[in-house]
Structures are given as structure tokens and as C-alpha cells.
């Protein structure tokens, strides 16, 4: 279907999911975290990446589609997997370098791609407390490239996070990840928000594309970043969803509307 064909009203959250899916290549092995990354991964699986392998931290390895889970582990995400094992095994796959792509949500991300899922303010006397790493630190430590998805606001995009839960490029000094003992050639590759997509150049976040299709402007993007962010000389308009992608998202990936507007629907409505 042509991108310009009608009947494809979409939201910023849809754009996030579709942009996420576009990052997945066929034959990728994807370590996927809860939330929008699951929608992107399933959408890619239904469309251009049927031969990708999905890894879920509870110990699930699968190459077939499954009902969108409301938590990482459900009987739906387990059933008819290629392999059911444990957290230890799937992380060994990552640590030994066998997982190409990580896909996580985040509390905050900073200029150098460091992710904070732990605390805002002082660790011992916090302003805000998140539940912590879960598997996110493992994903970003091990995967060749990691895609980070979160809603954008100044508060979520500080110049420097108060706590590094998942190391990005640390202070942006070349080789710093490897010096810290992390695997070579790993780290965040892209940040996808409801406003735009960002890549890393020399360990620093750069605006790569703007979701103009849902009316976002460069000024808006800059206003929701806590530092004077660099803009790529090749700045693009984010590739919008096709009608087919939106249809598959609505009808196959999330037919029960578990995720609406990028947020989990209140459970009482299940």
C-alpha cells in the first residue's frame, strides 16, 4: 500500500512503535523489554523481519508471533516457543555476544546515552524512585546495539543522569565503555521518542529525524531536551507508518488494545 493512501490516522505512540519496528532487521536476534518494544518487535515480525528471533529475559526464545503480553512472561509468550529456559541461559547468550539487538524502555536517558531506571536525586534520599534495572542493564551491557524507547520530556532527557543504571557512552570519551570492562562494539544505537529519533555520534546523542507526520517541530524537540542537543546535518522527517503497518498493529499486534497512546490500559478495563 502506498504511504499516502487514506485511512491511516495514527498517533505519536504509533509512530514510536513503527519507528522501533523499522530498526529491526530480518535475522536479528532481539532481546526485548516490556512495553512498546514488544509492539515494535511483533510488528517487525509480522512485516519485514519474519526470521528474527525474540528473546525474553524470563527464559523465552522464540521465532513465531504470539499474543502481546501484559508482562514479559505470560502463558501466551511462553507457549509454542522454540526454547524455554531461564534468565541465566539467555543472558549467557548475550554475554557471549550472540544477541544482535537490545530493545528497552527507560526512565531517563542523558546526552551520552546513559540510562537511569533507579533514582532521581540522591540515592539514599530520593526525589523519585523507580524499581531499578530489571534486565535493562544486562541488555545494554551485552547487545551489539540497543534501541531505547521512552516518552520525551526535559525531565526525562537530563544532560547527565543522577544514577547510571545502564551505561551508555558514559562521559562520551572514546573507548570508555571498553575501559570500564564492557564488551567491545556494544552500546545504545538509537533513542526513539514520541517526538523524534536520535542516534549517537562520537558518544553523543544527535537528533536524526523528527515526527513531522504527527506535527512535531524541531523547536519542540529541542524544548524537551535538557541540553543544547546537536542536530544531524542529514536531519530527516521520520518515515511515517504505512496503512498496512497501522492495520497490522491494530488488528494483529494489539487487537485487544492493551496499549493505548503508548500507555498500558488500566487493568480494570481488561
Amino acid at each position, binding site marked *: 500500500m502506498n504511504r499516502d493512501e487514506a485511512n491511516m490516522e495514527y498517533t505519536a505512540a504509533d509512530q514510536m512503535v513503527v519507528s522501533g519496528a523499522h530498526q529491526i532487521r530480518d535475522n536479528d536476534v532481539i532481546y526485548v523489554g516490556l512495553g512498546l518494544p514488544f509492539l515494535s518487535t511483533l510488528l517487525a515480525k509480522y512485516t519485514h523481519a519474519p526470521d528474527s528471533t525474540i528473546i525474553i529475559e524470563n527464559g*523465552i526464545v522464540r521465532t513465531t508471533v504470539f499474543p502481546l503480553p501484559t*508482562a514479559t512472561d505470560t502463558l501466551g509468550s511462553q507457549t509454542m516457543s522454540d526454547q524455554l*529456559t531461564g*534468565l541465566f541461559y539467555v543472558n549467557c547468550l548475550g554475554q557471549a555476544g550472540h544477541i544482535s539487538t537490545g530493545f528497552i524502555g527507560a526512565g531517563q536517558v542523558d546526552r551520552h546515552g546513559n540510562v537511569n531506571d533507579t533514582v532521581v536525586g540522591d*540515592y539514599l534520599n530520593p526525589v523519585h524512585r523507580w524499581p531499578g534495572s530489571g534486565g535493562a*542493564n544486562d541488555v545494554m551491557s551485552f547487545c551489539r546495539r540497543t534501541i531505547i524507547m521512552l516518552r520525551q520530556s526535559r525531565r526525562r532527557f537530563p544532560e547527565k543522569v543522577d544514577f547510571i543504571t545502564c551505561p551508555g557512552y558514559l562521559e562520551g570519551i572514546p573507548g570508555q565503555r571498553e575501559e570500564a*570492562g564492557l564488551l567491545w562494539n556494544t552500546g545504545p544505537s538509537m533513542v526513539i521518542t514520541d517526538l523524534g529519533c536520535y542516534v549517537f555520534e562520537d558518544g553523543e546523542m544527535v537528533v536524526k529525524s523528527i515526527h513531522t507526520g504527527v506535527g512535531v517541530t524541531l523547536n519542540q524537540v529541542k524544548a524537551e531536551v535538557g541540553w543544547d542537543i546537536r542536530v544531524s546535518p542529514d536531519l530527516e522527517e521520520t518515515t511515517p507508518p504505512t496503512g498496512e503497518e497501522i492495520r497490522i498493529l491494530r488488528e494483529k499486534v494489539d487487537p485487544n488494545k492493551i496499549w493505548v497512546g503508548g500507555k498500558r490500559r488500566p487493568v*480494570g478495563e481488561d
Partner: protein
Amino acid sequence: MSKVMTMKEAVLRYVKSGDILFLSGMQHGEPSAAIHEIVRQKIDHLTLVSCLVATSNLMVGEGLIDKVLTGYANQDDKRSYAIAKAKAMNRLPVFEEYSHFGVSLALFAGQMGIPFIPTRCQIGSDMLKYNENIKTIKCPFTGEKTGAVRAIVPDVGIIHVQRADAEGNCQKWGSVGVDQEGINASRKVIATTERIVDSEVIRRDPNRTTIPGFRVNAVVEQPWGAYPMHLAGCYNGDMWSYYMETGPQEGYETYVEQLVYGVNDWNEYLEKMSTLKGADYFDRLSINPILSEPIITGY
């Protein structure tokens, strides 16, 4: 030798105040019935090791936990009444934070009987600043920097499984989270099971055995023992209802009063739950079973 006993007896005999307690079931088949019994018996000053065990919030809220070794735990008193209640009683646990693989590695080192294990996760993060059981070391062979996680050896571990025999040979299938390393690292082991089966059933498919009988101290038969979580091949869960109900103050207090202290055991709990939620409630959690081809053994 049969190790079959009631839940009350197993918890009374093998879970002691001050223990490091491992709970299996990372978002799949947690030992909920056993957790409720520990709360009922008010066994306190526990150090908890687990990943994504939903009903462990009751142990925190009732002030039984001194310390939580965790990769992911709600610590926000605005979002969890259990945390707020613990805080108000001055019983808020200390949270010692790892990544999920960090917890798994610590337990794996415990299972292996070694003091620590090297790793490439957690390093470069700020977790090392606040958790003295994660460090960086120099590889003795290459000199390169690597992470190291100290072993965890729980005093007692509890696992819920689909089937076990009376001697304690346990078989769990589906995703196994941190079950394998956690239960095998534990000094004492309580196995709760949907069904006690003949040992011949275990021996016809012995690759599936998670921990052998000689490592297990107690076997408790408890159908629906993982509810409100799901259990592969047995039932779907209702985790979100549980979170919604026990998240706010009123729901939490009603729950512990009626369904923890207000019942004698898990069977009474299930009866009460079915009265509260409707007679067909547990039927609605049933699964559409898929059968595998049996494996063949023999000589």
C-alpha cells in the same frame, strides 16, 4: 523416604527468623501459598532473594523483611502501600540492587560453591557504588578489567512445581527464570507442588528434574499453589488484579485481614477467593492444553 507434610509444618520447620530466603518463580509459578503461610506465621528478619515475585509485597508490608537482594522492586511508597506501611512501622527493608543477571549470577556462584563469579554486566553502572557485593577485578590471565559478583547462598529456598514425588524430585517446566540456580544454591529446600506423582512418572522423563530428592527437605502438595500467577500446563494467572487490589491501602488491608490472617490454609484461601470473585472464577483461568510427544527412554 517420604518428605510429604502440610504447608504449615514445612514452613514452621524450615523457615527461621533471620534466614536468607530464596523464592523461585520469576513471574511464572511463584510459591504464593508458601509465601502466605510465612506471613501467617510472622517469620521475620528475613533477607529476601527473588526476581519479580508478585506476592512478596505482603512480606514487605507486614514488616518481615530486613533486606531485599533484587534486580527490580517497587520501592516507592506513593505507588505501593506495602512500602508505605513498612516505612510507617520503621520496617522498610534495605534494598541491595543488582541487575537481573547479577542476581542470577550470584545464585549460580552459590550453586557452584564458589565465592564469586566474573561477569561483564553491571560494570560501568552506579550500582557498584551502593552494592558492596559487586566489584571490578583484574582478570588473572589477561589483566583486563571485569566485573565480579559475590555468591549468595540462601538458608532456605522455596520452589513451586507442576509435579514432584514424595521424596522431593521436582519437575518444573515452562520458563524457569532464576529457579534452577536459586533453588540449587539453597541450603534447605521446600518444594510445593500442584500434584504429588509416583516416582515412576519422574523417572520416565528425568531430564526435567529441577532438583533431585536428596536436596529437598519438605514436599507439600498444593493445587493452585502459584495463584495469582500463571503456571505452565496448569492455569492462567490474574496478576494485574492482584496488583490492583493489594496496591492501595484499603485493598491491601482487606486482603491481608481476610485472605492471609483470616484463613487457616491455602484451600480456605481458594474457597474464599472463589466466593469473592464468583463460582466460575478459577474455571475462567483454565488453559487450552497442548500435549507434546513423549520422549522415549529405556534400554
